[in-house]
């Protein structure tokens, strides 16, 4: 029986590759250029190696798709803190990739302390990429009232205005927290772990593979985690909340690869912006427009933040707004303006080997053996809605954090994915069977927002400037 192992992309890749090199696995193509997600091993022809986003690995091992996996203890905890009896076994601490998770607030929040939070009657809002750990922290602290913002990233940008606290990762000494955050409490220390599926451990002989890892272990260099960006030198410009925000327009700008297009758009509209994209990880760039402030967060998180009143406007994809509205149909967030960049199609994708050409055929065919159709997607709400509306019957949504193409065919049956040219899909031997909709970057905001006159005038003028930049006559009043 082949042994299946899930290996991480991203921050742990280099050191994991070095470890496996020493262990003599002879993996080809496990490096930062990573052209293929399935890697052959020269030493163990029977070993199935697949590369995932680190965050996906505990789930893949827990549900038994993989016998072994390597990922950070932080993501293992994120799964097991909520699902205590998961079939996940921690085999070995690999030592590298170390860091710690902290509950942190902004340095500007003087009165912030654990005791003050416990006594607080108002909702304590915690932003984190680790929503389960954050919830467990809140329950154990016996916070009276809390809400968790699960974010895709940039949690450090949220306190103090957009959330009370952030649960973020940093170095073990806690000195390198970004964006002016001060740690209140260390939640866990983490490093890379080898994990196993409990059932596989009981039933399969994986000793040969384990032995190779055991041998090299003393040689591992405990390199410090290199992903922590340089800490912020310039104090961020004030970002108004509450009463101060009545006149000020707050806009969320995207991080990642949309930054380039966003700057171009702003410049075309005659709006100058400093330190965006930022070399130092500054998430509060200075917009040179009176009464307008900006903060940089993940586009995926923007619709929820606008719905909660943390921002008046945001630049994100229609795909993420549609996903948000699929989860919260009565949310007040709407499209204000099509910004006409970042075009993608949202598509349903299956393996080329499946003899179905559309969703009806896939449904008819079912999974044959009576098992669920596994739908993998970053857009979990869109995927759920799509499965519901197409009467997929027994189905399961598998949330992913990118590299979703790698899931087909063995770890999922259907993907809801975005694609620009379709070439990635073709390269992975997949085919598109349906197009859900087309998406471009949009300016989003609150439908019929109740703003005062000054602010409404500023919003209107900003929309007008952006509209003319994309060559659109704005009839907005």
């Amino acid at each position, binding site marked *: 029986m082949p042994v299946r192992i899930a290996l991480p992309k991203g921050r742990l890749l280099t050191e994991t590759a070095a470890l496996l090199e020493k262990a003599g696995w002879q993996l080809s193509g496990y490096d930062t250029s990573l052209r293929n997600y399935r890697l052959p091993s020269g030493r163990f022809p029977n070993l199935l190696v697949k590369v995932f986003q680190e965050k996906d690995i505990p789930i893949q091992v827990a549900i038994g798709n993989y016998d072994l996996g390597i990922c950070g203890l932080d993501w293992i905890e994120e799964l097991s803190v909520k699902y205590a009896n998961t079939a996940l076994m921690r085999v070995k601490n690999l030592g590298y990739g170390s860091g710690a998770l902290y509950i942190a607030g902004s340095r500007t929040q003087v009165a912030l302390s654990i005791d003050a939070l416990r006594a607080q009657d108002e*909702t304590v809002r915690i932003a984190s990429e680790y929503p389960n750990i954050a919830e467990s922290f809140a329950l154990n602290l*016996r916070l009276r*009232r809390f*809400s968790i913002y699960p974010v895709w990233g940039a949690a450090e940008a949220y306190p103090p205005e957009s959330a009370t606290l952030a649960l973020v990762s940093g170095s073990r000494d806690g000195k390198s927290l970004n964006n002016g955050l001060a740690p209140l409490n260390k939640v866990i220390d983490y490093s890379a772990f080898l994990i196993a599926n409990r059932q596989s451990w009981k039933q399969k002989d994986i000793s040969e593979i384990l032995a190779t890892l055991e041998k090299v272990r003393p040689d591992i260099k405990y390199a410090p985690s290199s992903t922590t960006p340089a800490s912020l030198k310039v104090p961020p410009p004030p970002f108004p909340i509450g009463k101060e925000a009545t006149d000020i327009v707050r806009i969320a700008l995207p991080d990642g690869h949309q930054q380039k297009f966003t700057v171009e758009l702003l410049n075309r509209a005659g709006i100058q912006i400093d330190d965006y994209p930022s070399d130092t990880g500054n998430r509060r760039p200075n917009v040179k427009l009176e009464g307008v402030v900006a903060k940089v967060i993940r586009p995926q998180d923007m619709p929820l933040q606008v*719905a909660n009143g943390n921002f008046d406007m945001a630049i994100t994809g229609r795909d993420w707004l549609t996903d948000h509205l699929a989860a919260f149909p009565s949310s007040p967030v709407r499209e204000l303006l099509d910004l006409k960049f970042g075009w993608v199609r949202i598509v349903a994708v299956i393996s080329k080997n499946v003899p179905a050409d559309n969703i009806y055929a896939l449904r008819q065919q079912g999974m044959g053996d009576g098992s669920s159709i596994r739908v993998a997607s970053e857009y979990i709400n869109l995927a759920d809605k799509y499965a519901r509306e197409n009467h997929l019957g027994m189905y399961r949504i598998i949330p992913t954090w990118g590299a979703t193409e790698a899931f087909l065919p063995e770890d999922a049956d259907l993907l809801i994915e975005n694609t620009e040219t379709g070439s990635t899909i073709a390269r992975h031997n997949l085919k598109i069977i349906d197009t859900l909709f087309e998406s471009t970057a949009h300016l989003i905001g609150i439908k019929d927002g109740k703003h005062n006159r000054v602010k409404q005038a500023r919003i209107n003028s900003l929309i007008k400037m952006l509209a003319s930049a994309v060559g659109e006559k704005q009839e907005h009043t």
Partner: protein
Amino acid sequence: MRIQKCKGTRDLPPEEMRRFRQIEGVFRNTCLKWGYQEIRTPTIEYLHLFTSTGTLTPGTLSKVYSFLDWDGWSGERVVLRPDGTIPVARLYIDSATKEMLARLFYVTNIFIFEETGKETREKWQCGAELIGANSISADVELITIALETLKNTGLKNIELKLSHAGIIRALLTGFGLSPEEQGKVFDQILDGNVAVLSRLKGQTPELARLLTPLLDLKGESSGFLKNLKAVFNHNLPEFTPALDNFITITDLLTAMGQKYEIDIASGRGFEYYTGLIFQLFAGELKVGGGGRYNALIPLMGGGNIPASGFALYLDPLIGLIEPPRATAERILITVQDEQPGLMKSAFQAMKQLHEAGFVASLNLNAKTKETYKWRLEVRRKAPRFILSGKSGKRQQEVATIDDVLKLLGGQRAR
């Protein structure tokens, strides 16, 4: 592929549902006689209703069924009610006129994740709450209602175990434990965690010496408590108010001829309570429990209102009671064909039989078997009705339903 019921849930087929209704009926009648009023609270509540008071432990709260509602973009979670009492306290605060005494009862389901498979994740309980009274007679009234209900369902040999949260708290405070640690440490003591015990013994040997008689011995009269008081009075005066309260309650129960066992250790999970804790056992099975929870309503911002209450657990009780008789025995109505005229007569006949208190239903000529006591053929021509027994015996021709009723008269099922 067969679709199965959700893990951790339970069906109640007719036989078990009859038992359920039997217990519920007895409970309702008993409560109504004692002047309690029935209420019902929603299945879905805000999570913060249960986190804000701090009366549920993080362990319990991590097993609630919580989710974001369709308009929950603020991150405000809702839960399937994990507890019966807290929503009732909320209802009291929402609706009560200031400082009213309220005697309330309910039959409700609560939801807590359970992974051993020994219990269900949805549990049913019959609960009563007496809000606004702090007297020992309030506590004794609740014990009496609980026992009376169990007795009237036909259960015998129900054991009443008593403990007292005030005593447990005084003890743990004496060991220098903060309120947050107390619940966990008490559980560890009861689980026989030697490390914890020796740590406590090391800190306060005087108190630790008393721990063993307090937790191990079981008393059957207030004398037991008076003996304890004699010892504690000297060493730990802070025990006195709780002990005095406990002694008064047990004296009253004794005077009423009610047997009980004092078992301080039975106060596991005491964090909810402030005073008396009582539990009801049928053999090894715990079938109910309750106590005084004076801190809850103040913690919910409802003012300084004392309260106590109890709940009986329907899930174990369903298996314990004698099965009640099946509902009235049935008359099966048969017709030769389904022509409108004949069907009209058949439906009219059934209506008259129903009004007279009989159970009558139509023979649907299905292949599946039906059980019945009598069979009544409705005919187009005279004789309009033929009444017969189960196996077609004792056939009698009848002209009108009134005559049918006369024939059945003495045998009416209810």
